[in-house]
């Protein structure tokens, strides 16, 4: 009964979404504000409706209603309540409900904004948001229904159906299978919501872009309205990616954080276009240029968001056959194709209205650097997209299955990332409109000399790997330029106002949060790059089977096997927990406990590494195997991951920088007018 209620509410919300589309379109063409207003109310109604449906599902999960196929698959009696709550996004059907719920929340939030000056956008924002919402609710209602129950027919077969088939009786399993153990991790609890928040919030700038195309109001208004939405979307997506990496590092037990797996890349691709968009919209705001390109970027981001949701949830990349057999595969394919063709068609229709208001005049101007930035981001996107779909193409045309693995991506993207980091350093020094190498040189020469000195020190310390030397030089140069730039601005302000250093920096950042938030993000990226370079180029590993009291050695560390205990836990796990001591130069540094948990319900093992983590390096130990009797010997795999903590530290700084950039101004219109006036008066950022 409760399941039917949840399903029924979902069906009503689907009807509401369709109504919102119809009413908005009718209202637009009939120029009837009442109809548009009605569509707006329908959009607002979708949020409480889907909330009720999602809460119903959570209630069913929390109360062990194993007669539901979805509840059976993702929970079990032994799971703690907080884990049961998060099981909502632990399976495909529930995660689609969750996606729809977030979508409705964002769409409702947009409906509640002040629309005074932009009412003509409203019907089309409603149409885009509602169509997207209707698609996802439709998937749940027709294909992936989490409310479907088990029924036993006369011949004893158990089937899954929403409504009672004739002659069948309800079938209630005693206990569920439980959530996949790999997903029982704090990172995995927060990672999907963050990623989905990022995905969903990118729908908002897209819907405004489409609204501007349909209505013909093709100035930069839509970009100004959605600037903060876009940054929030980008922040969530970035956090989702970082949390996913952290989860992989902590849980998957292969000593790394990014394996260039198609599912990872699927979430990374909208980030690439989104990041290009975040930069490139500034050209349109400041110079009225590249309107076609920005619109195309947000269309691509939207398509990749849908594509990403699809790939991260369905596993269709394994084979073309899996795609054909998947119920939702073709539906996604058609939706992505239809929305892309419709959006691109609109863009072509409005092509002549989107002409640039200025010309690109200098190769050293800010807009030129932003274009280069876009070229590099799009090139990384091409590598990723091509690498992900090529195995399908190969299988389709030759029948041969191939793997496109990490070496391909690393080789292709490393120079592009290096170029991006270098650009990150020099682009903020250039001015809008025009700069010369002389103005850049003036702002760069001091940090450049400092970077050369730092490089010489690194060489003297014994680093000889050419890739590392190039990488670290670019990183250090960018870091120094950015820090120098901030320091110069703080000093100039201090001199002009007589404020002390702290007050001066606080007010400087407060007056131009977007720019200094951006700088903080750039510094965070540099820190993350140090971590990625460290683990990417200098990771070492060893594996060996040792008896108690014996040791393994790696990069100066001694790892001594002390003890091993195997025991059962109350939540149906069998745990093998080793005790190892890490020492260096005879000094004991830490006692670690690498584990292997075996989950009885799901019959799945999980590896929990023992990690000693410092700012210099991580020592990451995995218990690979052990002799159960007398624990005479155990096999350990040890990874030495230099500098990896810089990645996580950088990601924390990234969140801070993004928050600085998105923090609301008192009066955005006033602030942006001031900023434009400042640019007009003070042309070179470098001077």
């Amino acid at each position, binding site marked *: 009964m409760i399941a039917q209620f949840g399903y029924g509410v979902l069906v009503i919300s689907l009807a509401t979404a369709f109504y919102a589309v119809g009413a908005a379109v009718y209202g637009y063409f009939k120029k009837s504000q009442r109809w548009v207003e009605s569509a707006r109310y329908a959009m607002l109604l979708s949020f409480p409706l889907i909330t009720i449906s999602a809460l119903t599902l959570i209630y069913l999960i929390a109360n062990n209603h194993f007669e539901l196929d979805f509840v059976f698959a993702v929970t079990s009696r032994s799971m703690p309540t907080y884990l049961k709550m998060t099981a909502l996004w632990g399976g495909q059907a529930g995660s689609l409900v969750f996606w729809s719920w977030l979508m409705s929340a964002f769409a409702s939030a947009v409906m509640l904004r002040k629309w005074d000056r932009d009412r003509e956008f409203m019907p089309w924002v409603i149409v885009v948001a509602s169509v997207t919402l209707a698609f996802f609710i439709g998937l749940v209602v027709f294909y992936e229904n989490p409310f479907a129950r088990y029924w036993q027919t006369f011949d004893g077969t158990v089937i899954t159906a929403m409504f009672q088939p004739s002659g069948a009786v309800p079938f209630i399993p005693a206990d569920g299978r439980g959530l996949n153990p790999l997903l029982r991790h704090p990172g995995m609890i927060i990672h999907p919501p963050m990623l989905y928040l990022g995905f969903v919030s990118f729908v908002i700038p897209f819907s405004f872009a489409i609204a501007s195309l349909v209505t013909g109001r093709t*100035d930069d208004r839509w970009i100004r309205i959605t600037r903060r939405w876009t940054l929030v979307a980008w922040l969530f997506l970035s956090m989702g990616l970082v949390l996913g990496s952290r989860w992989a590092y902590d849980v998957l*037990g*292969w*000593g790394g954080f990014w*394996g260039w*797996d198609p599912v990872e890349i699927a979430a990374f691709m909208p980030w690439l276009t989104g990041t290009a968009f975040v930069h490139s919209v500034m050209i349109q705001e400041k110079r009225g240029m590249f309107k076609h390109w920005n619109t195309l970027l947000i269309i691509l981001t939207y398509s990749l968001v849908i594509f990403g949701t699809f790939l991260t949830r369905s596993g269709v990349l394994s084979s073309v056959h899996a795609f054909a057999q998947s119920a939702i595969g073709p539906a996604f394919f058609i939706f992505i194709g239809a929305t892309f063709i419709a959006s691109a068609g609109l863009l072509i229709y409005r092509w002549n209205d989107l002409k640039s*208001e*200025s*010309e*690109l*005049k200098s190769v050293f*101007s800010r807009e*030129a650097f932003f*274009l*280069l930035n876009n*070229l590099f981001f*799009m*090139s990384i996107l*091409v590598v990723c997209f*091509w*690498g992900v779909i*090529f*195995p399908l193409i*190969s299988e389709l*045309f*030759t029948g*041969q*299955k*191939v*793997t*496109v*693995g*990490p*070496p*391909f991506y690393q080789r*292709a993207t490393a120079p592009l990332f290096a170029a991006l980091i270098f650009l990150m350093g020099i682009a903020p020094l250039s*001015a*809008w*409109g*025009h*700069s*010369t190498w*002389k*103005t850049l040189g003036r702002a760069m020469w001091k940090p450049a000399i400092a970077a050369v000195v730092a490089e010489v020190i690194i060489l003297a310390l014994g680093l000889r790997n050419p890739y590392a030397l190039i990488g670290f030089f670019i990183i250090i140069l960018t870091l120094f330029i950015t820090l120098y730039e901030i320091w110069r601005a703080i000093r100039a302000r201090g001199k002009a106002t007589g404020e002390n250093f702290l007050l001066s920096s606080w007010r400087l950042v407060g007056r131009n949060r977007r720019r200094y938030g951006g700088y903080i993000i750039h510094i965070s990226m540099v820190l993350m790059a140090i971590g990625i370079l460290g683990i990417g180029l200098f990771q070492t590993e*060893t*594996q*060996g*089977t040792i008896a108690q009291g014996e040791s393994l050695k790696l990069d100066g560390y001694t790892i001594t096997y002390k003890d091993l205990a195997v025991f059962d836990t109350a939540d149906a796990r069998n745990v093998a927990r080793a005790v190892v001591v890490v020492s260096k130069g005879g000094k004991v540094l830490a006692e670690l406990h690498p584990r292997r948990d075996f989950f009885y319900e799901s019959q799945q*093992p999980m*590896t929990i590494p023992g990690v000693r983590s410092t700012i210099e390096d991580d020592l990451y130990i995995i218990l690979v195997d052990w002799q159960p009797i007398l624990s005479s010997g155990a096999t350990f795999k040890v990874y030495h991951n230099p500098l990896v903590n810089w990645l996580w530290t950088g990601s924390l700084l990234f969140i801070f920088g993004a928050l600085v950039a998105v923090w609301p101004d008192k009066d955005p*219109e006033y602030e*942006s*007018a001031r900023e434009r*006036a400042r*640019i*007009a008066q003070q*042309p*070179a950022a*470098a*001077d």
Partner: protein
Amino acid sequence: MTMKRLIWITPIILVFAALWVGIAFAQDPTPSDDDVNRIAKQLFCPVCENTPLDVCPTQACAQWRALIRDKLAAGWTDEQIKQYFVDQYGARVLSEPPRTGLNWLVYIVPPVLFVLGVIILARTFHSPKESKGGDSPNLTPAPVAGTPAQPASESDDYVARLEEELKKRN
């Protein structure tokens, strides 16, 4: 020792040394886990999705790693072992598609598109309307030595357009 004898003896010593080294390595009875992982790292699990063989936790993969150990003990080279896996399970066990036939596309398409992007970008810079020299005074940081001054009419036109736009936005 005369020079002549040295010339004779040196190659003989070298040949024996090489043989001894070869035998010593070939007879190594148990290759270490690190030797096995060195090869397993370059291979992907033939049945799982996108899992490198060295970290794959399944029983099947443990057996494949044991197979690598056996082959190493039997004196096979890294390349021979990799080729054995390709022959048995297909090209999907390699971390990259082999550079043959249609697979070349995977390596060619991204650079071609990158070059295309560079060409498009270069065309944007060298559009016929481009004027040499500075932009309008409002946006120019410093006069560039040696560049001709911009015609006043174009500059005025731009300033007027900019002001109009600023007015519109405020």
